[in-house]
């Protein structure tokens, strides 16, 4: 158990930069999720921390010890690979005992420890099987067991759920969270799945093109995304991002004039004239009567996706597709939907930066 400090970690490949000047402090026992689209540099980050690839620049400290010059075996880092990377010629027991064996633990202690971890991950009945005889979910748990058995200083997971079917994924996700909280092991978890990003970690790091976009607790990142990329990436369906123009006392959005409430007018006008407006699909509700200070859209009945607990709709407004998400069902004669200005997020069209608080 230890903290981890990453200082200006950079990885260059030929002309390209896979990871650019990445810095992050992970507290002892903290669970940090790194999320981003494929190719954003998140797997590279794990390989650099693990020592599987050399850094181009920067430093990695684990538990107060600088490790970026050490070989992987001396970093006290455990990793769960996307492919699980179980040793196919060894039984589950020998897979789990392998890290202990490499550290010279006696056969007897190894056995006891492996059985403890097997109990924790509910694979006790599988110990004498080979990986080929296991299901995907079982292999996944064996991979976790092998990584956790020696109580690493830092625990790395590279998209560990991406090979599981949807139902299993929910179970294993909760299991991973429980085990991490129970053991208090410092964890860095990489994923492209934003449900995992929202639910697993204490903090989430949003990465794009090798650059950190935001570091925050997941709900904060959802509520106040630092820029348009984070806004569009976290949340499903994605936030609507629309170009808007600010006139003296109103916002023109997709051809519609939206009155600005007195309380917000002064600050919003100062950001103008051009802004990018972000509206979460769930910010919309059935419009009750008229009233200014809201963006009103008419959904296309053909786009209704009724999921029972909620309904997804879309609207083509002023040449833009706007996604809407409302709880429960919708009436047969679709009402207009409106989102109040107070729910809007504003971003600079030039660099995507968040405007205002």
């Amino acid at each position, binding site marked *: 158990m230890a903290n981890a400090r990453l200082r200006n970690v950079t990885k260059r490949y030929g002309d390209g930069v896979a990871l650019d000047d990445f810095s992050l402090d992970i507290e002892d026992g903290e669970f940090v999720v790194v999320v981003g689209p494929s190719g954003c540099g998140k797997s590279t980050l794990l390989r650099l921390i693990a020592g*599987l690839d050399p850094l181009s620049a920067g430093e990695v400290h684990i538990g107060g010890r600088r490790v970026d010059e050490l070989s992987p075996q001396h970093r006290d880092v455990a*990793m769960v690979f996307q492919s699980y990377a179980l*040793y196919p010629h060894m039984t589950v027991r020998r897979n789990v005992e392998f890290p202990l064996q490499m550290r010279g633990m006696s056969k007897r202690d190894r056995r006891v420890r492996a059985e403890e971890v097997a109990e924790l991950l509910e694979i006790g009945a599988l110990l004498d099987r080979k990986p080929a005889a296991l299901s995907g979910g079982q292999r996944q748990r064996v991979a976790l067991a092998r990584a956790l058995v020696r109580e690493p200083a830092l625990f790395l997971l590279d998209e560990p759920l991406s090979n599981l079917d949807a139902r299993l994924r929910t179970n294993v996700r909760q299991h991973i969270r429980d085990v991490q909280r129970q053991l208090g092991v410092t964890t860095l978890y990489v994923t492209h799945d934003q449900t995992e990003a929202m639910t697993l970690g204490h903090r989430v790091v949003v990465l794009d093109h090798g650059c950190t976009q935001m570091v925050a607790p997941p709900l904060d990142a959802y509520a106040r995304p630092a820029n348009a990329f984070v806004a569009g990436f976290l949340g499903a369906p994605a936030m609507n991002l629309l170009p808007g123009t600010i006139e003296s006392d109103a916002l023109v959005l997709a051809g519609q004039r939206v009155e600005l409430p007195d309380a917000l007018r002064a600050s919003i006008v100062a950001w103008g004239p051009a802004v990018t407006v972000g509206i979460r699909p769930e910010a919309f509700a059935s419009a009750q009567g008229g009233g200014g200070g809201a963006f009103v859209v008419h959904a296309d009945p053909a786009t209704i996706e009724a999921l029972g607990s909620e309904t997804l709709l879309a609207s083509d407004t002023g040449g833009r597709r706007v996604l809407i998400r409302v709880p429960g069902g919708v009436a047969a004669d679709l009402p207009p939907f409106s989102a109040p200005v107070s729910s809007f997020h504003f971003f600079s069209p030039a660099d995507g930066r968040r405007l205002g608080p």
Partner: protein
Amino acid sequence: MKRRGIVLLAFAIAGVNLVPLWLVVKQALTPERESFAWPPTWVPHELTLSNFSGAAEAVPLAQGLGLSVGVAVATVISTLALSLPAAWLAARREEVGSRLDGVVVAARLFPTIAIAVPLAVIFVGLGLYNDSSGAGLWLAHTLLGVPFAFLILRAAFRGVPAELEDAAQLDGASPWMTFVRVSLPLVRPSLGAAAMLVFLVSWDEFAYALLLQVTHRTLPPLLFYLSAFGYPGLSSAVAVLMLVPAVVILLLLEPALRSGVLAGSGR
């Protein structure tokens, strides 16, 4: 109908291969006059081991057998020791692999008998020519064996995901332990196949054996002399001795050949 055709074809191919084999065994176990009998006989009339004792009197058979086994076993060891690291490196680093490919293919293009003459001259200078323990021949056979072993083992290492080696290192294994505990066990079937093929390469090798050794000969040149001087019974006896490991290895390799361990290994 189609199936019966395939079965017939299989029998025909097996027959073409097995008839000479049967004749050699028959000639080795029957008196010489039966070998020359006309019309030829297919079933031995009189069984005898005199051809083996005769061959042992005519040529240094026991010494030849010992030398053949010794050189072949040593060749297997040295060839695998050289090929394993090379094949692993070639499988993990494509740029190294393509270069080694060129060297290995080029090495196989030269006729061995043409290289044997300059090699003999070099070995005279080094004191390896006609070495009583076959050290010179062993070196030459290692040169022959490496390309086979390299191609088989490289294909095998390519089948081992690099992530398994990454995982082992993170689990605390040194690079050497990673190789011994993870990579090597996963290529074991191919390693066995390579060892047996290299054994046969050395066991069967004639040109170097003829030109690099004079008085300390392995079995192939001994067989050649007996045959060239007109002793079909004696040479058949030596041939049968030479067939034994080949048949054993064929039986051992059969599952590997069937499972495609040697697929993509060249030749």
